[in-house]
């Protein structure tokens, strides 16, 4: 998809001082997007405001809550602390890309559904992206303690942690044959 409308995330007092726009190519959930974007636009805002991908949420905007977690080249990252320009050429997965095109849920999504692993749902996309990355990462041990530690960058203000943890264990069993 080619999108050439200028970014609007920042208002400049002095238009003459407006930094030049940057052309960025992002592959998101398998689809290539070309954006012309101001340098100070973070990936989270580009996803939400420019591309209509509102699954990733803005909780804190400072790397503290994990609601904005997406996968960049397979690794979980806070999209609020990453310029869209830094992601040029990267392969990005958001929560919108987890399910199969036919609508079949990803095992992590299915497990979250079965375990009722949310209340308000605001943190859920970030939780599922972190869980997906962790379950793909053989360096993270499959003990309760290390899963909890690896997930600690995702805050749930409703306190659904117990069900989130149980959902991750179920998804692990289905994906990796864990207990």
């Amino acid at each position, binding site marked *: 998809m080619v999108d050439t409308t200028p970014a609007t995330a920042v208002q400049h007092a002095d238009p003459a001082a407006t930094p030049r726009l940057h052309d960025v190519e992002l592959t998101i959930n398998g689809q290539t997007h070309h954006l012309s974007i101001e*340098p*100070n636009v973070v990936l989270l805002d580009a996803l939400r405001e420019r591309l209509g991908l509102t699954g990733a949420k803005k909780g804190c905007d400072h790397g503290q809550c994990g609601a904005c977690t997406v996968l960049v080249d397979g690794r979980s990252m806070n999209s609020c602390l990453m*310029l869209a320009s830094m992601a040029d050429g990267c392969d990005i997965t958001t929560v919108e890309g987890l399910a199969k095109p036919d609508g079949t849920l990803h095992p992590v999504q299915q497990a979250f559904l079965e375990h009722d692993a949310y209340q308000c749902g605001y943190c859920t996309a970030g939780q599922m992206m972190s869980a997906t990355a962790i379950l793909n990462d053989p360096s993270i041990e499959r003990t309760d303690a290390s899963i909890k530690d690896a997930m600690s*960058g995702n805050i749930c203000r409703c306190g659904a942690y117990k069900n989130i943890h149980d959902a991750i264990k179920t998804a692990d069993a289905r994906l990796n044959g864990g207990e």
Partner: protein
Amino acid sequence: MRAFDYTRPGAVDAAIATHARANSAYLAGGTTLLDLAKINIMQPDQVVDINGLGLDRIERLKDGRVQVGALVTNTALARHELIETHYPVLSQALLSGASTQLRNKATTAGNVMQRVRCPYFRDGTSPCNKRDPGSGCAAIGGVNRETFAVLGTSDQCIAAHPSDMCVAMAAIGATVSVMGPNGPRDIPFDAFHLLPGTSPAREHALEPDELITHVTLDAPPGGARSGYLKLRDRASYQFALASCAAQLSVEGGVIRAPRIALGGVATKPWRATDAERMLDGKVPSRALFEQAASAAFNGATAYEHNAFKIPLGRHAIIAELGALTGLETMQEVS
């Protein structure tokens, strides 16, 4: 976020030349810089993205030292075989820091250069000699608990250095290699971070436009063991209240080449050299560890809300030394 220009040079000399042209900041992982740019605490007109410089390798040098590129991520460093095998203290310190997502993004040089977590520094309005030299320090008579130091403070600034990684590097011994407009130079790790003294705005030994290219870890002595203990308000994803990085070997029943560094309690990654001297050549015992731990906090200054860090820091030392020497020390400490 404030507006800035963005460039992504492909070579170190181009990055330095570009940086010199404006009020600039190097951009590595961005987890400190963008955080602080959003609240106007850092105000670059230009960011120079250094992710294209190829400084992301870890190599063992012929002399046994390990050279870590400035852009190696905290995750990649923590999980690297050389680090897990020869520097467990570094791997543990890195994995105790921040969150999975942040470690995937944060880099070695960025971690060395991270800014203090003092809430008065971050609020943008309180008197703060670090942010606004000469304005005073709101923390000294304020709520000075978790992110404040008891060692290396001055009457100008008491903010603790927040890094876990740097505490491990201080214990291991390291060299920071930089490149600048006047060429390359090496800075010993202990000399890199500066005490606040009368100029808390000056935090490190970099000259204008200098870029960190590598951090090289000293070779550990034969038979060395090492580990990191971090004590904090919750079990994960929290800065240290007190932490201890230790590396030593035990030969013929006595401690050799002890290295101890402290985090959370000091204004820079803190070598406890008095404690090291006390341990060297001695038979491990609980009494010895208590003496060394006390020596480490000689001259500490407690502030209204952080006096607990002195006994907590001593506990951290005693427990980590106990873990490394196989002594059971996790009992009540006087």
